[in-house]
């Protein structure tokens, strides 16, 4: 089977720890130049999958090829051909900017005849020219994160893994960072993003949601918002809010009700049919309805809907 060097191909991947199936026959095909988002609650199998894809954990069965190498048989080659960045853990804060870059160049075995050019490139990309001697720990969040990205791609890996890369960074720096990522993807780098941060998920071309070891949704952000919710979403402004949630939890045809700021979010099977029913139901319970409308679900609504219906707040793994 012809396989592109830049892609990530996962076929029936399984990882078991004793009796516990952490990753349960997942298959994904990620194209060259794609920004792919991998989402899932804590304990869903996300980290186990990433560790296998990075060649750090051997699969129990199935296979995965990353950058053309089999993660089970050629983990060394996989590790040399990927970049990994996590905003929180990548850099040594007490080293200078240039020292971090040199350290990572060494770790990734950047050839000495390319070293200077790659250092220049990383400084340029991270917009840190002239700042080489600053102590990394003193840099603002947005700079640090660009430096971490520069360090992760010094060896020009065809596939990069990003773990919540822009959490806590100011929105303008975040947009600049994603511009860099989109630019790399346009040049053919495959980007695999894991995050809990729905604002980051919006930047991905496609998203997969893993839950209890299985992929439960796969598609573009718009497809997931359009097709993956079990039902439709209503926003209701009413008074008093607290009573309304309790009353609506037991209302017919209401799948879920939750407070959201000064309003309620209600998941119902059919919005058009539910609006008059809900209005009547609430006024029968002496609750005044101010405003009610159908709203577009956010990715977070989709995420919560897909990961709670088969589960009531329980965790299956410590």
């Amino acid at each position: 089977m012809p396989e592109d060097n830049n892609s990530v191909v996962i076929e029936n991947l399984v990882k078991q720890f004793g009796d516990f199936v952490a990753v349960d026959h997942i298959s994904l095909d990620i194209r060259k130049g794609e920004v792919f988002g991998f989402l899932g609650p804590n304990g869903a199998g996300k980290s186990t999958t990433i560790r296998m894809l990075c060649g750090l954990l051997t699969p129990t069965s199935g296979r995965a090829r990353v950058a053309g190498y089999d993660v089970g048989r050629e983990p060394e080659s996989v590790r040399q051909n990927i970049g990994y960045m996590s905003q929180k853990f990548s850099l040594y804060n007490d080293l200078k900017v240039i020292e971090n870059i040199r350290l990572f160049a060494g770790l990734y075995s950047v050839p000495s005849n390319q070293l200077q050019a790659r250092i220049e490139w990383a400084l340029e990309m991270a917009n840190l020219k002239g700042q080489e001697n600053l102590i990394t720990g003193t840099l603002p969040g947005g700079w640090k994160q660009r430096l971490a990205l520069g360090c992760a791609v010094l060896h020009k890996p065809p596939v990069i893994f990003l773990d919540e890369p822009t959490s806590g960074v100011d929105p303008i720096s975040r947009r600049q960072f994603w511009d860099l990522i989109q630019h790399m993807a346009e040049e053919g780098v495959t980007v695999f993003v894991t995050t809990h941060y729905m604002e980051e998920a919006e930047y991905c071309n496609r998203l997969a949601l893993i839950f209890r070891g299985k992929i439960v949704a796969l598609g573009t952000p718009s497809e997931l918002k359009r097709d993956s919710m079990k039902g439709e979403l209503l926003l209701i402004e009413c008074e008093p809010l607290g009573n309304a949630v309790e009353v609506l939890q037991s209302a017919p045809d209401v799948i879920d009700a939750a407070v959201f700021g000064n309003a309620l979010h209600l998941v119902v099977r059919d919005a058009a049919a539910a609006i008059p029913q809900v209005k009547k139901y609430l006024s029968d319970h002496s609750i005044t309805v101010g405003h009610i409308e159908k709203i577009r679900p956010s990715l977070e609504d989709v995420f919560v809907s897909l990961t709670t219906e088969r589960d009531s707040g329980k965790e299956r793994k410590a």
Partner: protein
Amino acid sequence: MTDQAQAAIVAEGLTKSFPGVRAVDHSSFDVRSGEIFGLVGPDGAGKTTTLRMLAGIMPPDEGTASVGGFDVVHDPEGAKHHLSYMPQRFGLYEDLTVDENIRFYGDLFGVRKTDREERSAQLLQAAGMREFRKRLAGKLSGGMKQKLGLVCALTHRPKVILLDEPTTGVDPVSRRDFWRILYELASEGVAILTSTAYLDEAERCHRVALLHQGKLLFCDTPANLKAKLGKGVLSVTSSDPRGSRDQLEHAAGISSLVLTGDGLHVVVDDAGRRIPEFEARLKDAHIPFDAIQQVTPTIEDLFIDAVSSGSGASLHA
């Protein structure tokens, strides 16, 4: 229950500097009983410093603050009786069980045993953690730890709670549980001041203060903040987002354009006028697109608009 309109937290002109940086710059706001108030902003905006000053563990350089009517500078002990502060890393004992941690904090806060049992059962129920009472705290997931921290911080029924980024790193499902507890507390009349770096989380608060580099940019309800933007926000859905960007990025009327995973997020002067213009451009260039829709602005749109039109230049420095 206290008067709903009474301010439980009052900050006036709070200011704190560290060498080389003014962490909090003349910040004023108040939080009423029963209100969830969000301090929203990126890392380094001054959220933690503000909370520390209100918790009475860091004196302000200037300004005053009171919690539950007690001045936090002159009477920090008085204020401490009424508040609970949950720092980013709450001190759970990892080798104690969930129940033992709760009992320990209950003792520290001098909670009577009868009260404690009832209270902790109720809080654990709300947190969806009843089955985990015998589990070691060290064996809980990140989201569970945060919820346990909150439970411990609430055993003495404080009137005011200060939470520093309680949902950072917590998955959306646990985050929602967490918010459910906050709404219940608010409905019991507790004043809640919580910080977050997730701008989308601002929408869950009754009122928010947007912070940037120590300064308070805006303070209002999320709905009023969005109305302040005064610009239209368009969502372009396309199977060729990069092609759409190339066609539209130099179009007239755009104040911000962001390439997303399957389209563009564009802030424009006049949505009604720009939608047909953009559609015509994309059609002429044969770029496939599903729709251009006007969408509700996000808090992020407002934040970016505010910092790039005002003090934005310093953001890049």
